[in-house]
């Protein structure tokens, strides 16, 4: 019987299709990834067993640093612009287009609203290293800046949900000041951002 000759096959595989798939997935992940927004102050969020994931859009985010400083942020750029328009008419801020554009890309900020034009005038590098003094909290019954922010943002975007990101060691009184402001604007429902943990036995 003649020997069966096994034909020699090449070990090289065509990688083109695999490469295509890999880069398609890569593109998908790059586009869907949301990068962690720059933090104005390091905030270590508390743990809880809550399982509700944070919604992807329409969020008004308040951040409370351990020392009680308050920062504000909207996730949606068109709403940011509308908010700025409302603020500039309420507080008589004269803003150039360049300043408005700077505000549009501002993730979060915390300062007296009257300081905003000067802050937006800075060059981007300087702005990134600026130490935000925190939103102005009204204690004497003067301008209610936080209340205005809440009211205007909610008027411009009805679906906004309020998220509060506070540090573990923030004192309750700073948290309470924010809640008072929210309740003054009839917001009785909000979300505290926490990281997941399991219930201890």
């Amino acid at each position: 019987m003649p020997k069966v000759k096994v034909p020699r096959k090449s070990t090289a595989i065509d990688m083109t299709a695999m490469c295509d798939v890999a880069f398609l997935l890569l593109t998908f992940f790059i586009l869907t990834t949301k990068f962690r927004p720059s933090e104005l102050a390091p905030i270590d969020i508390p743990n809880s067993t809550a399982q509700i994931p944070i919604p992807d859009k329409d969020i008004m985010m308040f951040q409370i640093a351990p020392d009680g400083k308050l920062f504000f942020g909207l996730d949606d750029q068109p709403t940011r612009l509308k908010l700025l328009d409302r603020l500039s008419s309420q507080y008589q801020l004269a803003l150039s287009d360049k300043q408005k554009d700077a505000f549009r890309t501002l993730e979060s900020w915390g300062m007296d609203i009257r300081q905003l034009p000067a802050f937006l005038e800075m060059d981007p590098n300087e702005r990134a290293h600026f130490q935000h003094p925190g939103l102005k909290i009204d204690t004497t019954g003067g301008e209610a800046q936080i209340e205005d922010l809440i009211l205007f943002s909610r008027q411009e975007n009805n679906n906004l949900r309020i998220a509060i990101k506070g540090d573990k060691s923030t004192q309750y009184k700073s948290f309470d000041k924010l809640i008072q402001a929210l309740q003054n604007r009839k917001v009785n429902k909000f979300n505290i951002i926490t990281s997941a943990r399991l219930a201890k036995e």
Partner: protein
Amino acid sequence: MAEMNTSESGAKKGHKKARSKKMSTRVDLTAMVDLGFLLITFFMLATTFNKPKTMEVNKPAKDDDKKVEEPPIKMSKTLTLMLGNNDKVYWYVSPDEIDANTQLTMDSVDYSSTGLRKVVTTRQNEVQAQWGKKDDLFVMIKPLPTSKLKNTVDVLDEMTINGVTRYAILEPTDPIDSLVALRIGQPRK
């Protein structure tokens, strides 16, 4: 592929010209695929593992917003938790009627499962024995100004874990609250 034949094209076959070598158009894509998958892995891990959760909080509406007067809750159905500044919870159960002989029990516990959770479950059982329904328990959470945000979150968590359906975050305005605050030496406002 990427090479061009610049000479007068190989028209004359027999000529002793250096013939351009036919190169394979295949490139080894293994390294590229490796790189692609490495990056995919990175982005996958970076996205999914860092999603924070949220805890929904409902505050009772302020008094002037209330249109309907609600009947007051019987104090014997309640449990009051006051959150102090040193990771301690001070709890008391206020009696229905306060008279000269009233004895108020107050104790401090920590946030562990043997501390706060035990208080809540004990109280749940007491309410069940007295009123027949565990869900009747109403927990009043009163954080003192110097307590930490973590404490509030922990207590709210404990409510979920123990299945307490009725609870509220309130301000420590009750006379007993000021007494407790005075006793533990922490500011109430």
